[in-house]
């Protein structure tokens, strides 16, 4: 469904991504693993139209071209990003944040159902709807961010380190929610430091080093790959 071909991104002279190929299918969770500064966030941002990609890059979603679109049109095309640091509107209430999620025309008709779905997924938000988003705890803010992305009725959901700042329990809940989202047919592309838990719920994974894909496999295979264990699951040996 999401098909990335030869994605390259540079900041000035510094090349953040070099010719990365990557795909995510309907109802699939794909995780990207890699060290700090490997280029994972740049990949997500490029897909969402927040940073420009090189000319020969092709990004398509269900066959339709995303490459040259501006960020707001990409959302209309069905791709939603939960950025690193969440990017919620702290001054606005939870309800307003979620309502803005449905700003895309594609989502307006189904706004009510989507809201119910998000509340089902994160029941805690129900009691906080009229609270300013910034006054909530990190975990709850993360819920708002994911909920807002889901409100746009996306075909594919991109998440940048969603477990950052979450307690392990919260992280567990989050990953359960992602599994539930997958069931609705949404494709999920995940950047995570928490390799263990993310691989546990993922279908496939990519390894990214210094801006290039250095390996990809099913999540199961990666979990038992000694090289991956050494690089990302250092504890596995314990």
């Amino acid at each position: 469904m999401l098909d990335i071909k030869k994605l390259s991104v540079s900041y000035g002279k510094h090349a953040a991504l070099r010719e990365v190929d990557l795909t995510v299918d309907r109802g699939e969770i794909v995780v990207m693993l890699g060290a700090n500064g490997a280029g994972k966030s740049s990949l997500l941002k490029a897909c969402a139209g927040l940073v420009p990609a090189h000319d020969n890059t092709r990004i398509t979603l269900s066959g339709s071209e995303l490459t040259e679109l501006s960020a707001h049109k990409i959302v209309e095309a069905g791709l939603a990003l939960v950025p690193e640091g969440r990017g919620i509107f702290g001054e606005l209430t939870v309800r307003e944040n979620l309502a803005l999620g449905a700003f895309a025309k594609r989502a307006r008709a189904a706004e009510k159902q989507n809201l119910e779905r998000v509340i089902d997924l994160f029941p805690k938000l129900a009691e906080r709807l009229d609270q300013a988003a910034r006054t909530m705890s990190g975990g709850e803010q993360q819920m708002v961010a994911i909920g807002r992305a889901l409100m746009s009725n996306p075909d594919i959901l991109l998440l940048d380190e969603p477990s950052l700042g979450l307690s392990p329990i919260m992280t567990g809940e989050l990953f359960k929610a992602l599994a539930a989202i997958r069931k609705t047919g949404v494709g999920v592309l995940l950047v995570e430091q928490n390799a263990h838990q993310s691989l546990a719920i993922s279908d496939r994974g990519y390894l990214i080093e210094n801006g290039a894909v250095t390996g990809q496999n099913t999540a199961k295979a990666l979990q038992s790959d000694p090289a991956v264990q050494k690089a990302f699951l250092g504890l596995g040996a314990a």
Partner: protein
Amino acid sequence: MSILKPDFIKPVGIGAVIFAALAFLPSLVDSYYMSLAISIVSFAVLATAWSMFSGPTRYISLATVVFFGIGAYTVAVLGEVLPFPLVLVCAGLAGTVIALLVGFSTLRLAGVYFVIFTFGLTELVRQVVSWYEVNVTREMGRYVFLDITQNDIYWQLLALFAVLLLTGFILGRSRLGFALRIIGEDETVAKHCGIDVTRVKVALFVLSALFMTLTGAIMAPRWTYIDPVIAFNPMLSFQVVIMALLGGPRRLLGPLLGVVPLTLLFEILTANFPNHFSILLGCVFLVIVYLLPSGVVGLYEKYSAPKKRVLATEQNAKPGGNAA
């Protein structure tokens, strides 16, 4: 201090020769060119002094005329009471005291809040001075009859500029100046290197204000009549900022590169298009903003740099995200 080294003596020597040569200007040109020279030198002092503080710290201050005006007004009040050198000392003291007050109370404001604050300060000082004069001294609009000629003013300004450049030059090689550069690069790092950031900033703010005050004091006898509207004309602050930004506030001689062309440009426009000065000035200004990437765009990058670091701080301070 490496005062006797060639890399100190040479630039200072060259500077001394240039300034000595400039001191003979009055015998070469007529008094129109002298008044133009006074304009250039006074803006050179103001823009350089402004840059001394605002260049490294990236604080855009519109308070220039507060200090300039305090200087001018001190002369208006004391000009006929005390000998002129003593008046200059008093002006310097007044400027220093106000700068200390302002510095300690406002340097925690950042960005546009600092800009607007300094602008508001101009208005406030003007109003307070007016009110004081009206209600306490009942003397509004003061006359300054001093036997100070245009050439005297020029020489004084020239000397002040020389002292300012020398101060800036020494500062650039001093620990204080180095501290200011570090603060400009990254205030957090500066603190963790053991720099008392507040004191350094206030010290530089005061130093810069002192030169502005003295400029005002030296210029004042030129106008015979001084009231708060004349002394605290906010346009001056804007002009200084624009000249300094155009020239480059992060090098000692940078502001001069903005002062000379802009003063001459203002002069040409004023002289040739008295009825369309505003329109042309505005157009020239827009052209500078849009088409001078080396002059202005480079500056934006410098001025935008601290913002990125603010973000970095926020990330550093996770969780909470309230670090800025």
